């Protein structure tokens, strides 16, 4: 038996007071007699050695005092965690990444499983159970008609994922199940999330079984391997950031591999609650970047991080423009960067361009003959002529002031679009059907698109209404325009990586070009066959390498990173230095704690006191 309010047991000191009073009263029962001369013939009542001989009155008083003390202490039985009348119970198990942390007694999730199993096994035989796995989204694993043994099997089969916890949806789902059963349902949550961090509406309505206390975790919180646009290989670097979430100093090493080659290993000593960065410079390799921590801690999932490093290459740009100043400016830019080569061509040579030789075609005020249908070569149209935009209302519009933009688009990365305005003049453009408007300007009181992009991979097209040639790309005032131009070139000429880097918990559409995928192999090597007609979205709940197999095409590789600082901070117990025993951290809903046992104890106390009053009165009358 345990007590919800054990401090009330301190009132037991009054029982000591009762015994002292009894002994004192017993002492009061002493009668001073002048002599035992006339009493010696009368048999003695008790052995004189038994000094403590409580009578009925004493026992009644003791019970009358003990019962309310026990009631105030609010006892409950550990095995019986449910109201005897509860017919349904919902078990919510937290399957987030932090539950995989290893405690002294084993994995946190194992402890949670054991507690859940104990709840199931100790419950009344008529109680039905439903199981909810809570992580990124809640999953109801069974209905209430499931046999108890099957519920236990489901509990044992549960595993943690590599995503952050969000118990709110799971609790809402559980609450909806409760409402379906007239409230005679209990909710039990097994998680390492403190109850105090949940919404206060749950705090008195669920049984909370917190697990875990260790904060021993060192995690990789970021890898930056972006090669700056047009940079030289030998100046490239990779930056790895780690964070120590524990209260102890950690020693370890961080290793970097790119494209399967070891780049370097850095040793470190991380003080408690600290961040560190490691710069791996002079990196020339390209390919899959894998950073890993070589140390032992409680959580392993955040000890690896994947990124992609594209190979360095030279961009060949063919420019068609009547403006020699633009040609000169582009040549100047090309000379300044080893990764760029610009060639001026006549428009009649455009048809002769081949994708392998030319990476980008820039058409500046060039009237196009035919359609925008060049063989797999990205295009940048700057201030296209009316022949190209036959639907344009006019050739040139007045000054344009930027009023809106899509700051998520890569061509605006690092740019404050407002610094571009106002444009002196712009050409009206009509966005293609599948186009994406990146910049919007206010022209003559009307909002008009200024920059539009369309296409994917090799058939990307960007249409820019303002004439960048008039913005002085090489001048001080044209710095933002130059950045816009370079971003456009970067985006148009970007090579798709052979692998995808995602974060765990994300969903992503898979390629359907050659048909839907047929199977997925997760980082643990488990194979899942995808049914025909299944949605072409995959969710990556585990960190590591995923292989998505398509018929008639090479497998698609996806690398999922676990990156959640809040989840990596696994030490959430009030005293992370010590382990909170699971038995002492049980909490009960007030309806269970304030159940009939406490009330009955008060009733019993009243009965004992009434009996004591009656017996004392009878004794007094007899005397």
């Amino acid at each position, binding site marked *: 038996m345990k007590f919800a309010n054990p401090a009330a047991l301190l009132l037991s000191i009054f029982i000591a007071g009762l015994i002292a009073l009894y002994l004192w009263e*017993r002492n009061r*029962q*002493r*009668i*001073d*007699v*002048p*002599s*035992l*001369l*006339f*009493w*010696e*013939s*009368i*048999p*003695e*009542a*008790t052995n*004189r050695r038994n000094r403590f*001989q409580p*009578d009925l009155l004493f026992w009644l008083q003791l019970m009358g005092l003990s019962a309310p003390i026990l009631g105030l202490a609010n006892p409950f039985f550990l095995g019986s965690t449910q109201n005897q009348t509860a017919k349904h119970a919902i078990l919510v198990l937290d399957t987030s990444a932090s539950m995989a942390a290893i405690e002294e007694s084993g994995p946190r999730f194992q402890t949670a499983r054991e507690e859940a199993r104990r709840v199931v096994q100790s419950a009344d035989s008529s109680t039905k159970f439903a199981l909810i796995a809570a992580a990124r989204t809640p999953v109801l694993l069974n209905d209430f008609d499931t046999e108890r043994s099957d519920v236990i099997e489901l509990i044992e089969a549960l595993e943690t994922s590599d995503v952050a916890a969000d118990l709110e949806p799971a609790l809402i789902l559980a609450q909806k199940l409760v409402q379906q059963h007239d409230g005679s349902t209990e909710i039990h949550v097994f998680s390492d999330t403190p109850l105090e961090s949940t919404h206060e509406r749950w705090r008195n309505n669920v049984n909370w079984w917190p697990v875990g206390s260790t904060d021993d975790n060192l995690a990789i919180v970021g890898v930056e391997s972006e090669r700056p646009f047009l940079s030289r290989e030998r100046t490239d670097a990779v930056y790895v950031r780690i964070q120590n979430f524990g209260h102890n100093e950690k020693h370890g090493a961080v290793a970097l591999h790119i494209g399967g080659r070891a780049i370097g290993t850095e040793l470190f000593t991380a003080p408690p609650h600290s961040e560190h960065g490691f710069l791996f410079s002079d990196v020339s390799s390209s390919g899959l970047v894998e950073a890993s921590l070589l140390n032992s801690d409680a959580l392993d999932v955040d000890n690896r991080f994947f990124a992609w490093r594209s190979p360095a290459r030279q961009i060949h740009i063919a420019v068609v423009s009547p403006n020699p100043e633009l040609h000169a400016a582009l040549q100047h830019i090309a000379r300044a960067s080893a990764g760029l080569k610009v060639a001026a061509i006549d428009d009649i040579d455009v048809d002769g361009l081949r994708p392998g030789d030319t990476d980008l075609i820039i058409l500046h005020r060039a009237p196009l003959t035919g359609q925008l249908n060049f063989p797999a070569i990205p295009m940048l149209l700057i201030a296209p002529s009316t022949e190209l935009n036959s639907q344009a209302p006019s050739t040139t519009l007045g000054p344009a002031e930027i009023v809106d933009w899509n700051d998520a688009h890569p061509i605006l990365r690092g740019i404050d679009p407002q610094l571009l305005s106002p444009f002196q003049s712009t050409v009206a453009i009509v966005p293609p059907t599948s186009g994406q408007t990146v910049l919007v300007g206010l022209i003559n009181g009307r909002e008009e698109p200024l920059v539009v992009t369309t296409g994917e991979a090799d058939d990307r097209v960007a249409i820019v209404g303002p004439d960048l040639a008039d913005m002085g790309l090489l001048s001080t005032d044209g710095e933002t325009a130059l950045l816009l131009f370079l971003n456009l070139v970067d985006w148009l000429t970007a090579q798709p990586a052979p692998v995808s880097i995602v974060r765990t918990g994300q969903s992503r559409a898979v390629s359907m070009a050659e048909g839907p995928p047929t199977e997925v192999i997760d980082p643990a090597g488990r194979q899942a066959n995808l049914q025909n007609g299944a949605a072409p979205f995959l969710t990556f709940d585990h960190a590591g390498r995923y292989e998505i197999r398509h018929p008639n095409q090479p497998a698609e590789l996806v690398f999922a990173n676990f990156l959640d600082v809040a989840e990596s901070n696994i030490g959430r117990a009030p005293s992370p230095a010590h382990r909170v025993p699971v038995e002492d951290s049980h909490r009960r809903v007030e309806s269970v704690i304030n159940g009939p046992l406490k009330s009955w104890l008060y009733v019993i106390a009243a009965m004992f006191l009434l009996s004591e009053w009656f017996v004392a009165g009878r*004794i*007094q009358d*007899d*005397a």
Partner: protein
Amino acid sequence: MQRGASTAEAAERWRLANTPTFLSRLDRLRIDVRGKTGRHPGNNLVSWATQASGLDFAKHRPYVQGDDLRHIDWNAMARLETKLVKTFRAEREAPLHILLDCSASMGAPPEDMKFNAATALASSLAYISLRHRDPVRVAIMRDSMAFQVCPLLRHPNRVPLVHDSLSLQIPVGTTDLLRSVDSYLHLTRLPGVAIVISDFLVPAANYETALRRLVAGGYAVAAIRVAGIQERDPTHPTRRVRLFDVETRRQRVVNLTDAHRTEYTRAREKHDRALLSWCAANGLAFCTVDTSQDPRAIITTALPRAGILR
């Protein structure tokens, strides 16, 4: 005649002797000496001696050389033509020895007020004796010893001294009447009347030998048994009680059932009857004093009835 009492208890005891009616009754009482007198002249006529002058004519005897001529009965000489001398019955004093039990049993239970009653009796008897010019000596018995609380008193004006001395006493210690009497007999050899005031809660052999010693010492012995209501009929709110002997400090736990109380009463009455019988068989005056009774009735009625006073 009497001085004011120094304590409230003494004033209370004095109250008994201060009321005119009560004093007049005490004045009429005398200690029944039963022939036990001293050798000093007093107010008690004795039959075993004559004296030349007095109030009570005893007999004539022939004149012998040396007799005082004033004591010759000239009328008898004229009739009988021989010289005859009148003799009178001698009057001797009858010292009163009051032996007061001052042990702890006399103070238990406190509600019985046995010691208060005993000291009041002692004071009244002292007054009666002194009133008739008989000396008084008061001694307390405690812890196998006897202690004089005051010297031999001869004048009624010394009665307050008896009160004051007794008011300072506290009933403590153990009771051993035999040794206390032996101790007292070593203190004095002044025959007279010895009145033992005690609760007599000792084995019969003890009090019998003690009283017999007094008789052998030439005393006219009287015993006054003092008892209270609680001693006569012990009661308590709880059935189970722990009896604590205030003298021996022994304890005994008993259930105060009706049967046990009856048995106790039987034992007590047997003890009292034995005491009464023995005193009667040995010519000792005996009286049982119940502290719940009126003290005046005790002195004016019970004691004379018992032969202690007349």
